[in-house]
């Protein structure tokens, strides 16, 4: 654990020196997510001009949902996303060989090798949005406030798990350029509170394809809207999903042949 943290610290230092070389790129990358936040906030701000609630969520509650979504997304972008986008390239060029040869877990290296500095700046913006949201409405209880970070981490684990599953697929089918987009397209289901969906789809988004756990469940927990079933699902499913996806990812590596050689 400690070695992993020290190693990641080195990765971050390298990423920082790399990004400082291309400062315009750093700021433009930062701007991409800021624009994305603005689009999401803009949509709901306009909707709330014409109605007091959407699927039972008031404007303040929706602000908490969006703040949560932005925080989980920024953490994912900062830690895993850049790495996830590189996986097909690793496979095609044989760069994955270098990860497999090192005395560190390949799962750790593949998903944490390249942190995104710009996304840490986005995290600051996301936390500001969340802070603003909590100035509009408070957590339901002290317990909810304490549990909230745990559910945020679990949301992040869900994101990592989905990316690991798609990464495993990329390793198996080799010519998988563009497959990463699948994750970002399906992620759209998690970008809205799950109460907008039909009961069947809500179940699917909780148990089968748990995109609802990314931001919707953490926001429901902190606002005191989550049922016991949802709380339990939010606590249990993400670690299990990570274990399964990690297992499948490492298993997929057995089929990797170092194509570039």
């Amino acid at each position, binding site marked *: 654990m400690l070695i992993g943290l020290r190693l990641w610290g080195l990765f971050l230092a390298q990423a920082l020196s790399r990004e400082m070389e*291309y400062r*315009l*790129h750093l700021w*433009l*990358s930062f*701007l*991409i997510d800021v*624009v*994305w936040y*603005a*689009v999401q906030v*803009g*949509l709901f701000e*306009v*909707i709330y*001009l*014409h*109605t007091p609630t*959407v*699927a039972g969520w008031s404007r303040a509650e929706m602000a908490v949902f969006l703040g949560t979504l932005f925080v989980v997304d920024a953490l994912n972008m900062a830690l895993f996303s850049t790495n996830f986008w590189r996986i097909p390239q690793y496979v095609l060029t044989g760069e994955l060989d270098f990860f497999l040869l090192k005395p560190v877990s390949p799962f750790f290296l593949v998903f944490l090798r390249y942190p995104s500095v710009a996304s840490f700046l986005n995290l600051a913006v996301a936390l500001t949005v969340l802070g603003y949201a909590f100035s509009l409405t408070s957590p339901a209880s002290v317990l909810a406030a304490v549990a909230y970070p745990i559910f945020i981490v679990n949301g992040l684990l869900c994101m990592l798990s989905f990316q690991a599953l798609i990464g495993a697929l990329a390793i198996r089918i080799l010519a998988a*350029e*563009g497959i990463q*987009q*699948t994750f970002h*397209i*399906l992620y*759209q*289901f998690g*970008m*809205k509170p799950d*109460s*907008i*969906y*039909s009961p069947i*789809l809500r179940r699917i988004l909780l148990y089968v394809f748990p995109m609802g756990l990314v931001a919707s469940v953490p926001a429901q927990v902190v606002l005191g809207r989550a049922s016991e079933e949802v709380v339990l699902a939010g606590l249990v499913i993400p670690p299990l999903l990570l274990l399964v996806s990690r297992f499948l990812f490492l298993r997929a590596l057995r089929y990797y042949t170092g194509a570039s050689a």
Partner: protein
Amino acid sequence: MSYLQVYASIARVGLSAALMYRTNFLFTAGLTVIVGVTVQLFLWLAVYGWGQRATFAGVPFAQMALYIACATLSLGITRGGRVERMVAEEIRTGELVRYLLKPIAHGPATFAMAVSERIVTFPVVLLLALVAVGITLPWLPLHVGIERVLLAAPFLVIGMALNFLMGLGISYLAFWMDEVWTLHVIKDISLWFLSGQLMPLSLLPYELRIVSEWLPFQYLAYVPAGIVAGLIPVEELPLFGLRAIAWCLLLMGGVAVVWRYGLRRFGGYGG
């Protein structure tokens, strides 16, 4: 060979290239449209309280659903793609010299390729948008007047040209900048909101609505979808048309200036 024949040949080559990437395209474009339309329709169903509200900002749900499906479809068709982005890569790698040595103009040649790409996109996106509406709202009676579709068609073409020009202008910045893909991404994300894909621009507060009317983005989704869904009165179309053409001319001029100045800085060195 006449001027038109030259660019028709380029368009044919572009069509082959677009079909070459069809599996990848079908998968990502298909999923994008189906998931995009489905999520949006669920959101608007919730906004309408699952049928409890007859109208939202004066718009009945059937009209809103038709608008959302058409707007996603419009942006799917008019959205710039591979062709415009490739230009930046050609400038960066020096491959642009291939065009400079040929008796063709770069802008129209790229446009011919982009048209081919959209010819492949259109039927797929149309079919998938219909599938998404069918899956999400199988009970919804959607009446689409053929005359409204015909009125929207020219705006769709203008929207495509506008988006192409914006994308090409960004790619031409590669004469000065190493990497312009971030600008393309920023443009694409902004367009979700600014083009009216996520909601009709008529819902915006009055001041923002006035500003959006003078910007070119509405022609990419709001205007074509608004015409089909009946949100834009037919008598206002001439004014929209004039403004759209003015924006086309303005952007063409702007892109030509960027190209001219950029080319002075360009050096293509073969290996």
